[in-house]
């Protein structure tokens, strides 16, 4: 392949900051920096796509196009990863649609996401020290890489709050300034204010789950959602509409401005600013470094016609998909590559995922009307999440949010939702599907995932992208901690399913066997360029600033040293806003590392 990257680049005018990838993180950062007066250029590989012109109700309710064929997502032909379970295997490309759901438009994955808008608990940020303090490490998988984030929940709280207000998040506080509030999640960290908009309504299945778990002594609560319940005007003056429970949400754009996204929440205000511009359909190939190797000078990118460009900038913000953040660091030679043999190096380290288990349930005489749905429409109990229960003697740490989620009734995607043992076709299948369409559902455990010595990402030696650059190679499998945790929480789901009256219960545990990217029960890959207090084990300091290159900031779930039993987006947003504040208030004057190494 003749690579555009061998051309002599043309050079654009220098800007104060260049943002690589315009999803949630990039939009939040751009909003802060332009408001502070900086000139910002955002470079986005995908196209401009907006509500009324690209995914309105005139075209949005089309399962084949958006869900089955993944019309909002970046094709593997553009870039994929290679995958293997262990370092001994040869990684091979993930050729088809899979769990890595890269965004493919301005707005990134923040346009097609489901909308769950969780805060992590205080424990998730301090796993290493709290586990050592409460239990010690005995009996745990010795390969676990546990480390604190270098930043705590309390410091992030104002940024969570800001993110929720920008996003218009719907929910009910469970802990307001330390006071437990009925109806919310009693296990959450203290909040300074309630959610901007009230919680969504219950579907039939949610109602049944609520009733059942309450009777069991649990505290179910409505999941905080970016499918918002009422009209909302956010702090940027941008307005949103109410969710209509349309059931075309996750994997779709939202056609009526009711799902939080960069398009719905930030870009209308941001694009009015004269100091901001977007270069879309342009792909950054690398960050350029000065001769000292410690300062970035800008980025090199390829436009849609294969022309190579340089965009000089004083600050480089890498805010692409988690996978691409790792890859760009590796392609640019920033930081030291993680070596699983020695344990040295930080780029590619602390790769993690989400550990899923649960139970598929089939009832007898229900009418769930599954088409009434929203991406984040659901209930959860947190009794078995994080460190909300005593792990003494269990042999694992962490847990899972045990949740039910009324997302959709789209029939192509549900055509496998029949009890095990049912044929996959023929009249028997038709009859079973007709029944289970209204009677089938699931309890889903979204579990923690902890980094492991033998799990990492690096550059593939063989497979290349369309520009001839190496793909990222992911070496991942579940560890013993994941397996034990998933099994433990799976049993809880089964018990709830039984109490709810399900006739047939089929438990599942993703971590029982080996991981495959085609298990699409979670899309939340994390880590690889993580924040931390120690530069030996983290790529970034607590401000998301590279330890090695002071004017490079990396934003996204790549920053997580471990993944919590929650969806990542709000934490991604809070870290981006926290980093933006640090740049504006501390970095601009100094232009050096904000934490002494």
């Amino acid at each position, binding site marked *: 392949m003749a690579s555009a990257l061998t051309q002599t680049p043309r050079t654009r005018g220098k800007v104060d900051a260049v943002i690589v990838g315009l999803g949630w993180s990039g939009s939040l950062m751009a909003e802060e920096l332009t408001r502070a007066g900086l000139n910002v250029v955002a470079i986005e590989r995908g196209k401009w796509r907006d509500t*009324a012109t690209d995914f*309105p109700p005139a075209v949005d309710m089309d399962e084949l196009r958006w869900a089955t064929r993944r019309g909002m997502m970046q094709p593997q032909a553009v870039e994929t990863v290679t995958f293997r379970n262990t370092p001994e295997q040869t990684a091979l490309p993930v050729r088809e649609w899979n769990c890595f759901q890269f965004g493919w438009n301005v707005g990134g994955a923040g346009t097609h996401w489901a909308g769950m808008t969780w805060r992590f608990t205080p424990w998730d940020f301090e796993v290493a020290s709290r586990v050592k303090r409460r239990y010690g490490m005995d009996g745990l998988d010795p390969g676990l890489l546990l480390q604190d984030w270098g930043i705590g929940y309390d410091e992030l709280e104002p940024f969570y709050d800001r993110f929720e207000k920008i996003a218009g998040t719907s929910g009910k506080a469970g802990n307001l300034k330390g006071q437990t509030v009925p109806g919310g999640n009693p296990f959450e960290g203290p909040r300074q204010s309630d959610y901007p908009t009230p919680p969504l309504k219950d579907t039939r299945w949610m109602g049944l789950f609520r009733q059942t778990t309450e009777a069991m002594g649990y505290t179910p609560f409505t999941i905080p959602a970016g499918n918002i319940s009422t009209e909302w005007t956010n702090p*940027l*003056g941008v*307005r949103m509409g109410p969710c209509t429970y349309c059931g075309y949400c996750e994997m779709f754009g939202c056609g*009526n*401005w009711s799902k939080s996204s960069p398009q719905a929440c930030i870009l209308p205000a941001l694009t009015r600013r004269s100091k901001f511009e977007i270069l879309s359909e342009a792909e950054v190939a690398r960050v350029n470094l000065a001769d000292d190797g410690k300062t970035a000078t800008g980025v090199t990118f390829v436009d849609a016609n294969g022309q190579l460009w340089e965009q000089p900038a004083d600050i480089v913000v890498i805010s692409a998909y988690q996978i691409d953040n790792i890859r760009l660091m590796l392609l640019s030679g920033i930081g030291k590559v993680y070596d699983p043999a020695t344990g040295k190096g930080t780029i590619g380290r602390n790769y993690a995922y989400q550990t899923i288990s649960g139970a598929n349930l089939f009832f007898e005489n229900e009418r769930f009307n599954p088409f009434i749905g929203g991406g984040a429409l659901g209930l959860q109990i947190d009794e078995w999440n994080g460190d909300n229960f005593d792990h003494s003697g269990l042999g694992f740490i962490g847990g899972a949010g045990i949740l039910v989620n009324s997302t959709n009734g789209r029939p192509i995607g549900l055509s496998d939702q029949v009890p095990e043992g049912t044929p996959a076709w023929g009249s028997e299948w038709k009859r079973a599907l007709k029944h289970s369409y209204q009677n089938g559902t699931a309890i889903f455990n979204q579990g923690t995932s902890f980094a492991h010595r033998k799990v990492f990402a690096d550059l593939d030696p063989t497979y290349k992208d369309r520009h001839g650059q190496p793909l990222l190679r992911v070496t991942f499998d579940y560890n013993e901690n994941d397996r034990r945790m998933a099994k433990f929480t799976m049993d809880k789901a089964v018990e709830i399913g039984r109490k709810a009256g399900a006739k047939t219960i089929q438990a599942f545990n993703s971590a029982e066997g080996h991981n495959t990217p085609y298990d699409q029960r979670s899309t939340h890959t994390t880590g690889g360029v993580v924040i931390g207090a120690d530069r030996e084990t983290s790529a970034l300091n607590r401000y998301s600033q590279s330890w090695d290159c002071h004017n490079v900031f990396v934003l996204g779930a790549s920053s997580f040293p471990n993944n919590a039993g929650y969806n990542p987006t709000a934490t991604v947003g809070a870290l981006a806003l926290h980093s933006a504040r640090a740049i504006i208030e501390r970095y601009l004057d100094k232009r050096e590392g904000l934490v002494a190494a």
Partner: protein
Amino acid sequence: MSAGKSKARRIARVALPVIGAAVVLAGVLTWRANDASADDVADGTTAMQALPAPDPASVARGRAVAIAADCSACHTRPGGGAAFAGGYPLETPFGTIMSSNITPDRANGIGNWTEHDFFKAVRHGQSPDHFLYPAMPYTAYVQISDEDMHDLWAYIRSLKPVSAVPERTDLPFPFNLRILVSGWNLLFFDNAPFQTDASHDAAWNRGRYLTDALAHCGTCHTSKNFLGADRSHHYLAGGTLSGWHAPDLTGSAQTGLASWSEQDLISYLQTGSNDHAVAAGPMAEAVEHSTQKMPAADLGAIAGYLKSLPAHSDNAAPKALAASDPVMQQGALTYHTQCSACHTPKGQGIAGMATHLADNAAVRAEDPTSLIHAVLMGAKAARTDANPTGAGMPSFGWRLSDEEVAAALTHVRNTNGNAAAPVTANQVASLRKSLDAREAR
């Protein structure tokens, strides 16, 4: 949905030159219609470029005049042209008229004009070289006060000269004979300055002055005769141009502003929306470029003046079509599956984003052109400092047949407190053709 000033519609008036030929004979009368002696208050001796720098206070006031008169909207080329450097193409049935460069550039702008030249062009449609086509709303601007003209001149002088040369306006014969405009002026140009009405207070007079002279609302909101001139007895009672209907601004209960408060009007002009309506189409342009930047007191004056207008029509609402009507049923299905996600099941809309359809006079307009336009082509809401959202109505042309559009709109016009004549499939078909909207699959 509302329509307002758009250059495209001013052009309709260009029709006029046609008849000019017939009238050339009426020389004396013509002289009166083209009498620009009122502009003699301006200095006619010194070209702009030779004048000393303008007084900053006058420039600031002139900028406000330019905003209220929305000069830059037409005198700026789409696609990134420098402001006031001309090049906006006004499509007319007679050909394309290009707006001119009005920056102080000597070669290509108006740097060689005197203040008198400027007054005469703005207020009487006569540039030093030729008659202007009435696409330039001098028919409204003739009422601009001398003080505002002096300030506007100062502001224009303060602009950076831009040497851009807009494309030439080149209408085919006989419309290329600009002298014919003088004949049109004879017939239709009310060549008279603004007259204060002593029976009303200063705010009311200010409101009328802004409405009629600077903001030239009648350009769209007053219907036109077959030669493109205002039908004066239909003053601000609604007009249709270029595929949009600018609604009735009088106190008519069925189609006008009877249910709007003054504050509703102010909010609409300031933010682009209120509890009744979201500005879209050409009115969105007017709000973005002009009204949102006007002082609150001026918007209040406009609102007070408009609310003082008696109902143009005292037509009672017709009886709403029965929900059981087959067309209404078809429309209800389309509405509930395709419209209600934004306009809500009961037509409440989303504040500042999607129009409140229930009990909305604009929905009941006699002429449903804007409604059909929005469904077929979509519409972009105004983006303003107060409401940057700019929600858009998507186009449904590709998926709704003429019958389905007609039925959905008939349903909207006859539910939730509305009652109005049905929309016909023929009306939809005709607009689909003239707008070059997509065919339904």
